[in-house]
């Protein structure tokens, strides 16, 4: 049954990708790419990658679609037809594809247990992580502890992307404060939607915290929780307007928190060094190494969650502010 679902979902993915390539209505393309990520998350779950499915579910289907839609609003909806027939591109693609498929013929078959991939460090993670880290979710223990340095880098990349978007789509402070008060909230006619969303918002926030702190025992963790929290704030922004949301989530606060998340992560590493361990070696945080690991993972995941949530909210605010500006101010 797993194999059947695998085959069917992969075929759906190919059809969706072909439709994406063919359509020239970009709105439809973006919605199909939403379907594409729904499909890929189901496929990840089918292949036992629960944490990846979790991330793809919250990131791909939610935030990514919304960002694409917001920027479509700014750049127009239709793609112009290309004037020439892209035979050269087709040729390049066909040749590359054939070569890659020829390359796969030497690959070990799908699902075998004795392939080189499974021989290197994976057995150590699976067999010893319970004694060394004491967290049942191996993905979390590898992410936050064994490969913590790597994850610090990823968090920094996200932080940097946040800075990049902020500086690319910046608004001068004066216009912002003057004009923002006059911007009406969107979707005012959708009363039922607003009421239901108000009901759902606290549930979303609580669920985000559950994902954040339950990540040691089940699928979840800082990345997913941050994105879910951001999705809740984004829902509120879409229904009640940017200025209402910014009463709470001020720009200065968001910038401060985004930096604070990275600082927490790096700070844990420095504290470990001060206490006599290596950078991000949590064993020294407490007397019992396993307790130290628990504390370290908790703090590090918290830092990741804060950074991811605030960066996603910042990015969405920036795009929304552009659309609002185009609609109400540049006339």
């Amino acid at each position: 049954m797993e194999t059947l679902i695998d085959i069917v979902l992969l075929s759906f993915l190919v059809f969706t990708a072909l439709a994406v390539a063919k359509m020239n209505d970009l709105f439809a393309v973006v919605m199909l790419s939403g379907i594409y990520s729904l499909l890929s998350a189901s496929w990840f779950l089918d292949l036992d990658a629960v944490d990846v499915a979790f991330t793809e579910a919250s990131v791909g289907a939610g935030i990514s679609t919304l960002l694409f839609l917001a920027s479509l609003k700014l750049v127009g909806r239709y793609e112009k037809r290309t004037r020439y027939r892209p035979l050269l591109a087709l040729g390049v693609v066909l040749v590359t594809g054939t070569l890659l498929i020829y390359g796969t013929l030497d690959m070990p078959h799908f699902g075998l247990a004795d392939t080189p991939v499974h021989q290197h460090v994976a057995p150590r993670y699976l067999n010893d992580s319970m004694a060394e880290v004491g967290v049942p979710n191996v993905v979390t223990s590898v992410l936050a502890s064994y490969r913590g340095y790597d994850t610090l880098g990823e968090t920094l990349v996200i932080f940097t992307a946040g800075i990049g978007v902020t500086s690319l789509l910046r608004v001068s402070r004066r216009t912002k404060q003057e004009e923002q008060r006059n911007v009406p909230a969107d979707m005012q006619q959708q009363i039922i939607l607003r009421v239901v969303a108000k009901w759902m918002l606290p549930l979303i926030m609580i669920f985000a915290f559950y994902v954040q702190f339950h990540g040691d025992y089940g699928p979840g963790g800082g990345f997913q929780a941050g994105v879910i929290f951001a999705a809740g704030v984004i829902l509120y922004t879409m229904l009640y307007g940017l200025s209402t949301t910014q009463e709470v989530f001020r720009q200065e606060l968001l910038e401060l928190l985004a930096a604070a998340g990275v600082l927490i992560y790096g700070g844990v590493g420095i504290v470990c060094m001060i206490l006599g361990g290596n950078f991000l070696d949590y064993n020294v945080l407490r007397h019992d190494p396993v307790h130290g690991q628990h504390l370290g993972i908790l703090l590090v995941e918290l830092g990741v969650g804060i950074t991811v949530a605030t960066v996603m909210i910042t990015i969405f605010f920036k795009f929304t502010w552009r659309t609002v500006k185009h609609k109400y101010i540049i006339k």
Partner: protein
Amino acid sequence: MNIIGLYNYWIVVVLMMIGFYVVIAHENLIKKLVGLSIFQTSVFFFYISTGKISGATAPILDSRYNLYSNPLPHVLILTAIVVGIATTALGLALVVRIQESYGSIEEHEIQSQDTKDQMESQLEAYGFKKKHILSIQNLDE
């Protein structure tokens, strides 16, 4: 089992090539970004495919199971997805700025504007006046 032994990898190649085609053959920058994300997810599929073991379960330890899939690809791809959305957001911000300063996000229109500007500035450097070089505006037709 052996019939689909390489099926996953072939689908990965097909998806990657569709994404590649969209990136190199389409001129609209948003479409290119969508193609790029298809390309990106095909890489994710490849990693996760290699991590799967038939009959295994998800790598969350439980006393009832003793065969787990490989957790390492999951860790790499999990962070890659979030980084992917961050870079996509950066790309979209660039596209928005391009639209604001060029008035178009079609690649050939942007390039023809660039060439025109370049030629104008070169001609001005040779001492031509602005009014003389109006005629090159139709050059890209």
